[in-house]
């Protein structure tokens, strides 16, 4: 299994900064100099106990040497490496070393990468608007038509010295009419662009909603209150995160759904059986049993579980929803469950397997290709998106709930499905489901073969 260079590189950098010899630090930490040498050169992975002793000797918190602490940054650097010019590739295999030795520079690169992604998204949205907005298209067509007429007509007037006076009068009148039309169209275009200026915000509406929910820990207390339907526009109206009208509309829709979920699965009734399932000797997490008990569908239960307030003894769940096209419509992250910001996700996610097997609940143990790799038990189901209807269009939706395997007992470790975030940043180079090459060339995760049924931890 590849070793993470993060801890060893950091230890070496910190020791050098303190002008400590390797033998000195080894003595202070109570390990042999040769063992420390192996750790510093990333040839041995230090045990948590040894890391703790080294951290104490270096007078830093042990968490600073935690290999997973800089993982997100390393992942971002690898993604940023995809921007390297052809012929001048970035040293992706040294991303961990960069993070360990120059955390400030690494953070800056990650920040610039995120900023560039956001700007690209804005450009994409503006391009989409140019191409598909019917109002804008009609305005531009009107302006181009008027400009064409003016240009052709004035050219005739300017270049025809012997123009018949009657024709001259016709063309003068035409130019006058077109100049008025041009001015009106330009004025209407400016007014239109002014009125829709708020929609040029950096984030897409879905990202705004997710950012807003994330800031509240994915639980909005107001959905637990009241009996009848309520108008959510007042609640979403004053939220700074929800900058665009589109995001406020999406948020209001989500809240209405969450309120229905909360009514069907009241917190006071749901909490006791849920906690019992995760308690020692409690029989294990069985979402199908909860769904039966409350008479709800699995998808509704998944949404509710992923947006509960923190409950003692109950893990935080991750959630992904997608529509019939496979587009992710909600991404509720949880530690170790990396979600793509743009484009499609890993096609091996049980979410997508469920989408092609409607109404068939699926369960799988999945391992995300991170450092360290994280295992989750995924429950997924797909079906018609409510409300049910007899007339088209028929909308489909799939839901996937992720429960950290560490919170469960009896997880089958013999049939683990290796998955990733998205092909572009996935190190499983030999995966049969790959749709584009990975930009990660070195230092893969636990397994480089997505087709295998299990992985070596």
């Amino acid at each position: 299994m590849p070793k993470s260079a993060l801890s060893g590189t950091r230890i070496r950098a910190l020791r050098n900064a303190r002008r400590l010899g390797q033998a000195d630090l080894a003595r202070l930490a109570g390990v042999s100099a040769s063992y420390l040498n192996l750790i510093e050169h990333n040839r041995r992975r230090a045990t948590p106990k040894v890391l703790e002793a080294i951290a104490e000797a270096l007078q830093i918190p042990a968490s600073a040497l935690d290999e997973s602490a800089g993982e997100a940054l390393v992942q971002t650097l690898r993604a940023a490496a995809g921007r390297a010019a052809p012929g001048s590739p970035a040293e992706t295999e040294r991303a961990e070393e960069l993070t360990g030795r120059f955390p400030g520079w690494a953070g800056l690169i990650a920040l610039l990468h995120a900023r560039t992604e956001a700007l690209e998204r804005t450009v994409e949205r503006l391009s989409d608007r140019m191409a598909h907005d019917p109002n804008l298209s009609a305005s531009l067509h009107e302006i181009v038509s008027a400009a064409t007429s003016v240009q052709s007509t004035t050219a005739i007037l300017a270049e025809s010295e012997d123009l018949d006076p009657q024709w001259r009068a016709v063309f003068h009148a035409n130019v006058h009419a077109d100049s008025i039309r041009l001015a009106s169209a330009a004025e209407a275009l400016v007014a239109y662009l002014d009125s829709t200026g708020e929609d040029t915000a950096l984030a897409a509406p879905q990202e705004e909603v997710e950012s807003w929910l994330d800031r509240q820990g994915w639980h909005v207390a107001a959905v637990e209150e009241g009996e009848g339907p309520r108008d959510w526009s007042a609640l979403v109206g004053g939220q700074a995160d929800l900058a665009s009208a589109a995001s406020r509309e999406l948020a209001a829709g989500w809240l209405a759904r969450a309120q229905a979920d909360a009514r069907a699965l009241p917190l006071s009734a749901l909490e006791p059986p849920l906690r019992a399932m995760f308690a020692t000797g409690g029989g294990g997490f069985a979402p199908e049993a909860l769904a039966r008990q409350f008479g709800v569908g699995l998808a509704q239960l998944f949404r509710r579980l992923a947006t509960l307030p923190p409950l003692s003894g109950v893990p935080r769940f991750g959630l992904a929803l997608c529509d019939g096209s496979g587009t992710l419509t909600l991404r509720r992250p949880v530690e170790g469950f990396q979600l793509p910001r743009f484009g499609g996700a890993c096609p091996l996610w049980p979410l997508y397997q469920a989408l092609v097997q409607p109404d068939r609940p699926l369960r799988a143990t999945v391992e995300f290709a991170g450092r360290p790799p994280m295992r989750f038990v995924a429950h997924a189901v797909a079906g018609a998106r409510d409300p049910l209807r007899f007339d088209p269009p028929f909308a489909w939706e799939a839901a996937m709930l992720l429960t950290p395997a560490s919170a469960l007992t009896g997880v089958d470790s013999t049939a683990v499905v290796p998955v990733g975030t998205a092909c572009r940043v996935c190190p499983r180079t030999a995966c049969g489901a790959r749709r584009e090459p990975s930009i990660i060339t070195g230092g893969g995760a636990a397994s480089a073969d997505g087709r295998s049924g299990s992985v070596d931890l």
Partner: protein
Amino acid sequence: MGHDGTGLTHPATAGDPRTSGGGGGHGGGRRVLVIEDEANISEAIRFILRRDGWAVGVHDSGHGALDAIEAQAPALVILDVMLPGDSGFDILHSLRRQPSTAALPVILLTARGGHGARDHAREAGASLFMAKPFANADLLAAVRQLVGV
């Protein structure tokens, strides 16, 4: 047909604006059909072509455009893309499917001059693609070249 929307009467020398034409110049009385819904644009095109000796017909909609082409049997068609009724692309596809008009020179005019529109026009069988606004001299040169005068 008072198609310029100005309320003015057309000059007497112009005759019927849909079919007016002259016999001299490069056109030699050959017929060009302009299918364009913007009256002032077709007015300008009609003028510059007629002055060059072309007989010019004007049709202002996608509706009935194929019938107009069949009836007037032009030597060349100047075809706008965005028309009421059938689009310029629809009309072009129909023309290319009929043996009698498969080789008819067609200049496609569009307000969208990007690569995508150009590729689309070429695939649809346009003889030439011109983005609006265009220079009168360029349009005239294109007509002469495609008809071979």
